[in-house]
Every structure is written in structure tokens, then in C-alpha cells.
């Protein structure tokens, strides 16, 4: 390529980008509030505040999906642990993040790179982190791309130029080892972002930051709350809240009608307590351990706790509630919030977090005998120090952090379920805080097959309120990527072996598949660019749950790269 051609191409790209920006309205509170009405865009991590992960686009549909072809792709450099992020699309431009806090803006129709951003990181710190260096998503608004960084900052990057506008240090990652990997959520003029937690001896804060200036406005500690704001330190005896874990490592949701942020919180630390049935008075962290493994309702303007429901009081199994989306639904004149959880159960709330129903997505659950429709746990399996067999599900969860999809045309919630179990030996441990904070697990363990069955996964279409099954497709290994359903009556399922499959969303009949060459462990969206519908999916393997696949499932996973990431984009010819 000659220099003059290169300059001309760059000028054209900037011109096109400037043109797009000139004709498109700024992404602000009002536009985000109505994101579900913009079928051609995907403006926020969950698609819209309804968190449906659904595209109304129907150009690609059950009748023509057989002709779907790869349109273009983009290789994400330095993709250690694959590509776990969720692309966003705005006015013909596609934005996505990758490992080591890189961000790209691409022409949505051609894949031409408009700009590339690489966060300046403390690489010595990143090398010390276990749940790193992946990034799971970004937020758009007010001319910025917002991203939480591995070293504890929130960064605002100019959507047009890819230059950083501001950075705000929120977490002392050098002390606590953890930072941010989850996507921020833009609510009105605030950016809400939750820190990693759970496995580490910290308190898992969630922050509210001014979207324009970067000023930190509020903080809420998920382990114990804040003085004068939901102070719950008395639910952690022996001051165990100090090293309690918690966190909010995935993007939460927002209910504009009540001006309430819903955020799922992570597990307490150590993950496995040795208290046994005496957990209210004995063990590593006696008490309910609020607000871990909970859904919390926050005022986005002040960070004030408006309410909560602790899905698993004193979680002793690492089945935290940080994983699930908050699906806003209306059914029969009633308004619901549906929240799937790592435990394998799906909680159905009213808009004030009062439990309306709880149903099972998976079969292999024995950490409790059951959870009643009112949310009460029955027959807890609280363990003491020593060996225990056949605890279900496995620590990676009955559902992982990958998102499901709700399709308003079929009325079905599509979700991946994981059928697997574990043996473990619980060991009394002491949190290690210096010179670097270390994991605080509390057990040695290994993955196992469920009794009388083989570990596997499934994707099902169910009624989101009752859990009634319409169809289910089994997979030899649990898929670990997010799902997409569309107005074309399609459900796209990116699987671990590398196949992207399209199903009839009403029947579960497979209609199309394409091998992307490596496993999927990220997001998938649909958008429109220059009048054409596209499907964009993150490919790349090596996430924490998938790390167990080579040793347990073997097969293609033994040789699958863990440092490769490619964004693949599909369209009709």
C-alpha cells in the first residue's frame, strides 16, 4: 500500500465516521431509554434496559438463513484467554473490546478499522491476576466509549477518535490484585461499574461515576454495605466483612420506571465455608453475609440502597448472583424482573424485588433440596471441613456468565444450562492480604459427571415466568457463549467447539451452522450497516470455565488455542 493511498483511505474513513456522527443523534439518556426501538443498533451490553439480548431485525430469517455467509472478520491482537467481550453497534460503526483493555471501532459494513485503542496498563499487576486479562464489554454514551480496566480504572475514550478523554482510579488494584472486567452500564448521566470480587479478600464495591467528568459520585460495598447506607456488617460475625468477597463483576440492569439499578452480587469469601449447619454462629464468616449472592436495588443518582433480595443467604457453594441478566417483562398486566443465577435456579421478581417464582433450569442440583416459589431455601447442604462427594452443580455453575435471550415474538427465554458436579475437600484457610491479595477459595476440588449421567450442556426455550419447557437441544459440553434471538424467528448459539448454529426459535430445529475454527466464549449481536443486517460474534477460547475442558472433556479442547480472538461477522449474500 502506498503512503498516499493509505492517507486517502484514512481520510475517507474519518470522513465517513464524521458523516455518520453528524447524522446520528448522540447516545444520551433518552436514546438509551429507547434502545429497544432501534433495531439496527445494539447500544448497550444487554441490548437495551429490557436486557432481552434480542434483535428485531428480520432480514435474516428462518427461510433464508441457510444462505448466511461470513462477510468480514477482524483479528483482535493479544487475545490472551480468547475474546470474551460483547460488541456494540451504533449508527453503522461497531465497537468492541478485547484482552488487555484494547478497544476497536470498525466500519460495520466492511470491517475497516476506524481506530484502535490500547490502555496503558500496569503489566506487572496484570501478570499477578488470575481472572485476567480479558474484558467482557464496554458502554457507549455522550460521545464516549466507557471501559473498566484491569488495574482498577474507569476510562472514557472518544468515540470518534479513539483518544482517551479521562481516567478515574476507583480500585486500589495494586493492593487488592483485582480490577474491572465487566461492562459498565450507562444510566442517565452516570456510569455504573462493578469490581471483581468473590474469590478475593476485599469487599466488592460498585461505583457511580459522572459520565461527563469522570468524577466518582458514590460507592457501595457489596460485602457489608456502607455506613448510613444499608450497613449490614452485623451479618458478618467476627468482622469477617473486612475480607468478605462480594463484588459485581457483570453489568447489571436498569428499570427506568422506578429509576432503579438492579445489580447481581458475587459470592462471599472464602467460597467454601467449614461451618456446616452452624453457619449463623460458626465458621469463616458467620451470618447471612449481606449483600453477597444477592440482587441489590440502587438509586443510580446517589448509590442509596433501595432494596435487595439475597438469593442464597450465607452462600457456601460459590453460586453467586452476579452472573444473570435482569430481564424486564410484562405479562398479564404484571411487571416482572427475571434473573437467572449460577445456582441453576431462575428467580422471578416483581419490580420491587419481591420473589414471585423460582424455577430450575438444570436437573443436577443438590446444594439445596429445593428452593420454594417464594424464594425459601429448603434442605441446605452445608458442609464441614473434610471430603465431600457429588456436589451439584460444579463450581462453574448451572449457568455461567454468558447471557441468554428473550424473544418477545415467541415469548420464550433461551438459556444455556450446565449439567456437571464436583468432589471437594474443604480446608480451613486464612485470607492472605500481603504482599498481594490472593484467592480465598477454601477447598480443593475436581469436576465430576453427575451420578448416572455424563456431564453435558443444553440450550432450551422456556416460559420465563414458569420455566415451562418448549424445546431443548443437548450439547456434549456446556456452551459458554451468549445467545441471540431475532425478529427473523432465529436463535443463534455459538458453541464451545467452534460451531455457530442457527435454530428455529419456535421449534429448536437446526437450520444453519458454520465452523468458526475456535470455541466461542463471548457475545453475539445483530445490527444494520448501510441498509444490511449483520450478525457479529466473538470467537476465541480460554476463559476460566473453559479452562477445565481440555482435562475433563479432552477432544478438540486439548489443542484449542487460548490466545486467539477473532470477531466474525455474517450476512446474506
Amino acid at each position, binding site marked *: 500500500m502506498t503512503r498516499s493511498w493509505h492517507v486517502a483511505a484514512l481520510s475517507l474513513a474519518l470522513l465517513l465516521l464524521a458523516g455518520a456522527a453528524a447524522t446520528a443523534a448522540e447516545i444520551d439518556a433518552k436514546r438509551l431509554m429507547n434502545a429497544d426501538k432501534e433495531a439496527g443498533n445494539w447500544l448497550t451490553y444487554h441490548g437495551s434496559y429490557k436486557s432481552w439480548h434480542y434483535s428485531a431485525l428480520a432480514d435474516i430469517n428462518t427461510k433464508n438463513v441457510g444462505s448466511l455467509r461470513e462477510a468480514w472478520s477482524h483479528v483482535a491482537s493479544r487475545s*490472551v*484467554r480468547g475474546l470474551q467481550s460483547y460488541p456494540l453497534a451504533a449508527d453503522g460503526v461497531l465497537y468492541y473490546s478485547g*484482552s488487555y483493555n484494547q478497544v476497536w471501532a470498525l466500519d460495520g459494513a466492511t470491517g475497516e478499522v476506524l481506530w484502535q485503542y490500547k490502555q496503558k496498563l500496569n503489566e*506487572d499487576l496484570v*501478570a*499477578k491476576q*488470575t481472572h485476567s486479562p480479558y474484558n467482557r464489554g464496554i458502554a457507549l454514551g455522550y460521545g464516549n466509549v466507557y471501559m473498566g480496566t484491569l488495574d482498577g480504572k474507569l476510562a472514557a475514550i472518544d468515540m470518534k477518535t479513539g483518544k482517551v478523554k479521562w481516567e478515574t482510579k476507583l480500585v*486500589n488494584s495494586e*493492593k*487488592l490484585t483485582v480490577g474491572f472486567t465487566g461492562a459498565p452500564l450507562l444510566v442517565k448521566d452516570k456510569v455504573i461499574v462493578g469490581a471483581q470480587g468473590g474469590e478475593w*479478600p*476485599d*469487599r466488592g464495591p460498585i461505583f457511580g461515576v459522572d459520565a461527563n467528568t469522570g468524577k466518582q459520585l458514590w460507592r457501595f460495598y457489596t460485602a*457489608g*454495605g456502607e*455506613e*448510613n447506607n444499608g*450497613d*449490614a*456488617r*452485623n*451479618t458478618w*460475625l467476627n468482622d469477617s*466483612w*473486612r*475480607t468478605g468477597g462480594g463484588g459485581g463483576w457483570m453489568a447489571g440492569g436498569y428499570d427506568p420506571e422506578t429509576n432503579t439499578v438492579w445489580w447481581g452480587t458475587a459470592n462471599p469469601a*472464602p467460597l467454601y465455608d467449614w461451618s456446616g449447619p452452624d453457619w449463623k454462629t460458626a465458621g469463616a464468616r458467620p451470618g447471612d453475609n449481606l449483600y453477597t449472592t444477592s440482587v441489590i*436495588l440502587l438509586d443510580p443518582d446517589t448509590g442509596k440502597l*433501595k*432494596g*435487595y433480595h439475597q438469593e442464597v443467604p450465607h452462600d457456601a457453594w460459590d453460586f453467586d448472583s452476579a452472573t444473570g441478566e435482569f430481564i424486564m417483562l410484562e405479562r398479564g398486566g404484571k411487571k416482572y424482573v427475571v434473573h437467572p443465577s449460577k445456582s441453576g435456579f431462575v428467580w422471578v421478581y416483581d419490580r*420491587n*424485588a*419481591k420473589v414471585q417464582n423460582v424455577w430450575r433450569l438444570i436437573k443436577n442440583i443438590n446444594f439445596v433440596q429445593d428452593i420454594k416459589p417464594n424464594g425459601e431455601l429448603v434442605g441446605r447442604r452445608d458442609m464441614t471441613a473434610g471430603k465431600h462427594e457429588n456436589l451439584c452443580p460444579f463450581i462453574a455453575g448451572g449457568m455461567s456468565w454468558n447471557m441468554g435471550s428473550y424473544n418477545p415474538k415467541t415469548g420464550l427465554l433461551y438459556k444455556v444450562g450446565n449439567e456437571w458436579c464436583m468432589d471437594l*475437600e*474443604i*480446608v*480451613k*484457610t*486464612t*485470607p*492472605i*492480604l*500481603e*504482599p*498481594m491479595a*490472593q484467592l480465598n*477459595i*477454601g*477447598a*480443593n*476440588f*475436581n469436576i465430576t459427571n453427575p451420578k448416572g449421567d455424563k456431564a453435558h450442556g443444553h440450550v432450551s426455550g422456556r416460559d420465563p415466568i414458569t420455566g415451562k419447557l418448549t424445546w431443548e437441544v443437548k450439547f456434549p459440553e456446556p456452551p459458554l457463549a451468549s445467545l441471540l434471538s431475532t425478529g427473523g424467528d432465529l436463535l443463534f448459539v455459538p458453541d464451545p467447539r467452534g460451531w455457530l448454529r442457527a435454530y428455529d426459535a419456535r421449534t429448536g430445529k437446526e437450520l444453519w451452522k458454520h465452523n468458526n475454527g475456535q470455541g466461542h466464549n463471548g457475545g453475539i449481536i445483530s445490527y444494520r450497516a448501510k441498509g444490511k443486517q449483520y450478525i457479529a460474534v466473538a470467537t476465541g477460547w480460554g476463559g*476460566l470455565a473453559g*479452562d*477445565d475442558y*481440555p*482435562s475433563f472433556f479432552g477432544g478438540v479442547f486439548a489443542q484449542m488455542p*487460548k*490466545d486467539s480472538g477473532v470477531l466474525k461477522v455474517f450476512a446474506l449474500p
Partner: protein
Amino acid sequence: MADKPGPMQSGRHTPGTNDNPSTAPASPSATGPASDFDVNQLFASTCGWCHLKGGREAGKGPKLADTQLADGEIIARIRNGKPGQMPAFGSAFNDEQLKAIVGYIRGLKP
């Protein structure tokens, strides 16, 4: 839904207590001599996440029992890590503690 988290405000937290977790007492195992250093506990808190059954089986990380790595190679891997696979523990452990970890690995039985 708990509209008011009032009952929790009467908790056992003492006003004025420093709520910075970084000031909580550190484990003596992190900096103390090898004699106080419980490697079994270390595996259950940190290493066992990847090296299953205390290092007896492969998981996210390799099986450590019967490793072919020399002692120096094991120590180098603990200190330096491996990007995307193992964190670098750098100066988290002193020489005596590193020797204790190697001793634990050498002593692993199936």
C-alpha cells in the same frame, strides 16, 4: 424487598472502625518462616483453583504430582507465572516458603 435496611444498622460494627480491608491483619503465612507456612492451606485457598485435588489432577492448570520440572523451574514458574494461565506470585513467597511449596509438590501421592 427490604425498603429500609434499618435493623442492620444496629450491628456489631464499632463506629470509627477502619473499614479499609487493606488494614485487616494479614495472614502470617504470607510473610512468615516456612515452619509456619501451611502449603495444604495455600492450595485450598489459592493454587487449588487450577491445580485440582491439591495438585494431584490436571484442571485449569497442569497436574503437579510427578511433574518433570526441576525445582528451579517450579520456583521460576511460581514467581513469573505464565500469561493467561498462571499468575505471577513475584515476591509473595520467600525462599523458604518456595522450598516448602516444592517439597509439597514432590510429596504429592495420587
